[in-house]
């Protein structure tokens, strides 16, 4: 079986003897030791496995490893920059969003992709962008609040030129 090279969170990784159909999720979790993306359904319906490939949110449980070789991949472990949390991560802590917390890394990655595209999302924009991420504990109300708060913070920092 082939050797496949991955670019994850700005670092190069080489995985030897890898079945090319292996979903990216299991490469991240089993081969690269990045446990932030979670397994929930295996069918792309719960969003717990969400990561970014080329800046776009993808369901890593359905993404064959061979299709993302050499492409820039960002996982929750790479969202903080230079040791500083992403405003979404800060907002998640401030709003105490999590209950069990299992879905939250996927939620944050979906929200991060939204804010990249749309810095001033309406309540409806947020609902639609997050509709692919299930939270079995029902923390949707706090997720909405945290995304709004992070969007405002990001927007304010952009306007002040930071």
């Amino acid at each position, binding site marked *: 079986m082939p050797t496949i090279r991955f670019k994850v969170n700005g670092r190069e990784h080489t995985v030897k003897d890898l079945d090319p159909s292996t979903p990216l999720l299991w490469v991240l979790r089993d081969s690269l030791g990045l446990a932030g993306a979670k*397994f929930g359904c295996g069918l792309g*319906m719960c969003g717990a496995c969400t990561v970014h490939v080329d800046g776009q949110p993808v369901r890593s449980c359905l993404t064959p490893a061979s299709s993302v070789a050499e492409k820039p991949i960002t996982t*929750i472990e790479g969202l903080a920059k230079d040791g500083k949390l992403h405003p979404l991560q800060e907002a998640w*802590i401030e709003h*105490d969003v999590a209950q069990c*917390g299992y879905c*939250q890394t996927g939620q944050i990655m979906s929200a991060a992709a939204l804010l990249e595209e749309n810095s001033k999302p309406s309540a409806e924009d947020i609902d639609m962008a997050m509709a692919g991420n299930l939270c079995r504990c029902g923390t949707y109300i*706090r997720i909405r609040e945290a995304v709004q708060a992070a969007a405002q913070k990001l927007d304010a920092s952009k306007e002040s030129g930071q």
Partner: protein
Amino acid sequence: MNDQGLHDVMREIEAQDALAYSSSPMNRRLFLRVSGVAGGGMMLALQMGLASRTTALAAGLSGDEPFAPNAYLRISPDGSVLIYAKNPEIGQGVKTALPMIVAEELDADWSDVQVEQSEIDQSRYGSQFAGGSRSIPSNWDPLRKAGAVARHMLVAAAATRWGVSADQCKTEKSAVLHPASGRRLGYGEVASQAAALPVPDPESVPLKKRSEYKLLGKRITGVDNHSLVTGKPLFGIDQKVEGMLYASYEKCPATGGKVAQANLEEVRSLPGVKDAFVLEGNGKVDELMPGVAIVADSTWAAINAKRRLKVTWDESEASKDSFSGAVKKAAELAGQQGQPLRQGGDVAAAFASTAKTVEAFYSYPFLSHAPLEPQNCTAWFKDGSVEIWAPSQTPQRAVTKAANTLGIPAEKVTLHQTRIGGGFGRRLINDYVCEAAAISQKAGAPVKLQWTREDDMAHDFYRVAGFHSFKGAVNQSGRLSAWQDHFITFSSNGNRPVSGGSMGRSEFPEYLLENFKITQSLMPLSTPCGPWRAPGSNGIAFAVQCFLHELAVAAGRDHQEFLLEVMGEPRWIDPGNARSLHTGRAAGVIRLAAEKSGWGKPLPAGRGRGLAFHFSHAGHFAEVAEVSVDADKNLKVHKITVAGGVGPIINLSAAENQCQGAVIDGLSTALGLQLSIEKGRVQESNFHQYPILRMPSAPQVDVHFIESDYPPTGLGEPALPPVAPAICNAIFAASGQRVRELPLSKHGYSA
């Protein structure tokens, strides 16, 4: 097949009440031991009556109580305060809340506090589990006393050093102060000295009044939040052990089926597969049922190989259950009387002399827990012992169950508690732990067993369906005068209902009524059932609280007023039992929910409010749903107002989160969740057939608490039962349509 363990788990949890609320001084006594620690500082080990009592009971009430500390508090010379969180964290917030209780009485600055999950050890920590909304009530007194005793000793040490009287000193923010002289000593500076002092009798150390709380009742963000949002490996699924292999396990989709034949040779030849073998199991559904284990070098190889596995099942003793068959049988039984369960007064006379009678038939379906983290467990069997890393709600039971499965003494099992990606009652049962242990034993290697979502939905301990054939009466003055409920439920042995399928005496409202009659019919069932968030109440509340509304409507009465009349004078239903319903507390939350929701204020056509109260897990909860329904049954839930009474609030943030989550869980379930079972097989396999609510359908949820000095009770469950009836009563108010069968989607409603 043996399902005894499914009953035992709830009995053990409920037994906590007797211990936690007993007024016997022996039970309430708290034992504390203090010691210095290497490098200085103070370590306080505590043992409460609960733990020692449990141990003594297990030993046949010898009265010889071994020292069994159930928590540790450690203060280091640098002033840091380490508090061990003893119970499993499933999202209910106890990893933060339990240490907050210690920190409050200790007067520790929360920013000095570090929290770590404790080991799993009955002899040192007493009972460790997450279930029945019991973590807060059963740990409240011991943890408060632990904090207070430590504070008392730190003050004594500082006072001695200063040569002043202890009662001239006070504490704040992890420091002892002597206001008269302005002197101050941080806890870290006196911890070593405090550790050398004798431990005072915990009963002699005063506890704070609620008005003195600085930390409790505030919004405190969860102690694991930073790790959660940065993707740290906290959960069972994240565990890794050196040299670990990955396993999948295929069981018969009809419970009780055995492996007749399997293409093991073919599976063993698949890429990455190390071995494939049959486990016969021990016939216990909560331990190890027969199946085929596949051991591989990656999770994907194990899961993928399972798809190529072909098993011929011997289903001679397997479940043949059919839900559609049960629905038909229940409809037939509804016309019969059922076996008498409980009665009071004379319902026949009341019906004969009454102004109006109402009859209705209600039902709710089987449900899956569907926690987002599929079942998994890592186990390493080596030299007759096993080490386990498990997301279990009952880790101490997991130890004994794994030992039983492997045929080794419990002392040979070490279990490490992980964070849990959703419990909801599913992980009270430790079948996946036993499977992982057995696979590791046979494979001769450390193994992480990973279930798929399909495995999870096919092999749950389901919320049992239920049916209620009601007859009720209101008299000339519009008062509820008689109540009859023929409850049709399921049994695996013909004698008693399955786990979660009983209607206990504490289910509202029979104990408030003069004339009532509860009867029961049992239908056979092989599908394993178990506790699902607010067991019993989660279905019964829908039927009972909707039917009560039907009676209020029949009487031409306002629902709030009708409910308050049923409550009557403020009193404990079971005097002396602080876990029983108090009608005054019930009336308080009913009034508050009504007031905050704008109850009685006019709404446009097609929009309506619905009210429901339910008492469960010692929590008093009333909720008002405001919904719109159009002619095509498009349902919009605008807002749900929650009013709850659970005593003092520990962590307001987590408390509100629990209530909002319970409301969304309740709505999600009422709207679209159901399982169909045919030929013993659950037909739904994944989220496309089990549509958990998504964000666009989530309503606004306003949460209000009536805080009080009653002992605190738990919040994991009691906000859920009123949700479905509040929504269905609101649909009636908005549209005149009465829904008597869940889920709503079955009757054409969509949100």
